[in-house]
């Protein structure tokens, strides 16, 4: 008995053929993003590496981008998915501007939109493989939030993705305080990025720091951190553990 076999529409994700189209694992990835609130707004840092597994394939990837007038988006994870998200946001901001009504989407709104997008893709079992950090200032209100690839989201005074959660957050918990000056904020971020550089295998020593305030967004030229490798533990790593390699 063969009833009229139901045909899937071309772009459906149902059925065995569609499995090959769902994300299984990421290919070109960015590592941690770290961000904090300071006196005038948000400071965010990310290195410029795009890894292809264990190969450091791309060394000038900008993983932080301005969104509209009031927001800054940083991403770790799959770079192509980040670029896709930027395309979605381009359209969002365009339609917002087309109203031409003097109102513009603030960081809270953009964060909410991104959360819904990420959750929706997770529901369809085809996630955007990113951890996003969204920061901004609107009408004097500072905002800093994050969304994961399965839609888990929250806002806080400081956030980080990936390894940043393990290495940077503890430093931030200890040393962050309300109304950090710009210099102190940068110093704190650099401290976090330096630890990540020493200990995260996928981190590279070429980073940018972005600042967003009521006035707007600026992103630094790429630069590197000073590192110190003469610690005695680094000099003779096997000293305390004979036979190790």
């Amino acid at each position, binding site marked *: 008995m063969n009833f009229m076999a139901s045909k899937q529409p071309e772009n459906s994700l149902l059925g065995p053929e569609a499995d090959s189209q769902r994300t*299984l694992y990421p290919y070109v990835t960015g590592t941690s993003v770290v961000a904090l609130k300071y006196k005038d707004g948000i400071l965010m840092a990310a290195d410029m590496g795009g890894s292809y597994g264990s190969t450091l394939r791309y060394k000038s990837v900008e993983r932080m981008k301005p969104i509209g007038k009031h927001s800054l988006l940083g991403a770790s994870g799959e770079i192509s998915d980040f670029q896709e998200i930027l395309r979605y946001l381009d359209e969002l901001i365009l339609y917002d501007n087309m109203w031409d009504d003097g109102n513009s989407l603030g960081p809270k709104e953009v964060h909410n939109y991104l959360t819904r997008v990420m959750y929706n893709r997770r529901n369809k*079992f085809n996630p955007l493989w990113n951890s996003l950090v969204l920061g901004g200032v609107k009408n004097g209100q500072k905002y800093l939030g994050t969304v994961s690839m399965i839609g*888990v989201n*929250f806002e*806080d005074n400081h956030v980080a993705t990936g390894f940043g959660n393990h290495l940077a957050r503890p430093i931030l918990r200890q040393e962050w305080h309300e109304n950090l000056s710009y210099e102190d904020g940068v110093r704190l971020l650099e401290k976090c990025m330096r630890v990540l550089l020493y200990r995260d295998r996928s981190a590279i020593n070429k980073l940018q720091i972005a600042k967003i305030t009521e006035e707007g967004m600026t992103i630094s030229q790429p630069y590197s951190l000073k590192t110190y490798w003469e610690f005695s533990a680094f000099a003779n790593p096997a000293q305390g553990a004979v036979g190790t390699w």
Partner: protein
Amino acid sequence: MTKQQANWSPYDNSGGSCVAIAGADYCVIAADTRMSTGYNILTREYSKICKLADKCVMASSGFQADVKALQKQLAARHLIYQHQHNKQMSCPAMAQLLSNTLYYKRFFPYYSFNVLGGLDNEGKGCVFTYDAVGSYEKVGYSSQGSGSTLITPFLDNQLKSPSPLLLPAQDAVTPLGEAEAIDLIKTVFASASERDIYTGDKIEIVVVNADGIRREYMELRKD
């Protein structure tokens, strides 16, 4: 070549505990404010409590993205109800809506463990407790989430709940006063924080009574 399996899970446990206790003319709903993933703390100040209607408050723990989506769904449905009926939803009505909403996703569940608390139409405290797919019952008190195994036995002991098998059915609403119930809540959370790694940081306590809704906080261990 075997078919590739996905190496990501659509679910994650954000941890945390929720408790609700119903009294003769009040209801107290509480939850800790810690959000975790694995062995990490993501944030120490995340609210798991959501006001759904004037006299109806829900606390949910589990997978935060699903909890958020569920809260949004219920808020949207409540708004429609208000437009259609020109009144707020009662707590028992919201209880049924929540059950139906959860069961709707029976085959890809909201990983959300809920307690609903508030005042019924007569102003008496009521608590409804749920599993992830919508099975629910009206109780005098309940706890859900990572600390529930530690909290529930203590509540059973302190609130001396009557057996649900008794006939005629005995009301489980506690004779405790509002202040005593809040004190009990603080005690159970302090205890749960000692042994449950996912519970801690701060408790958010919401009290619903004839005067309205009020909120208070208490610090917990940060470790």
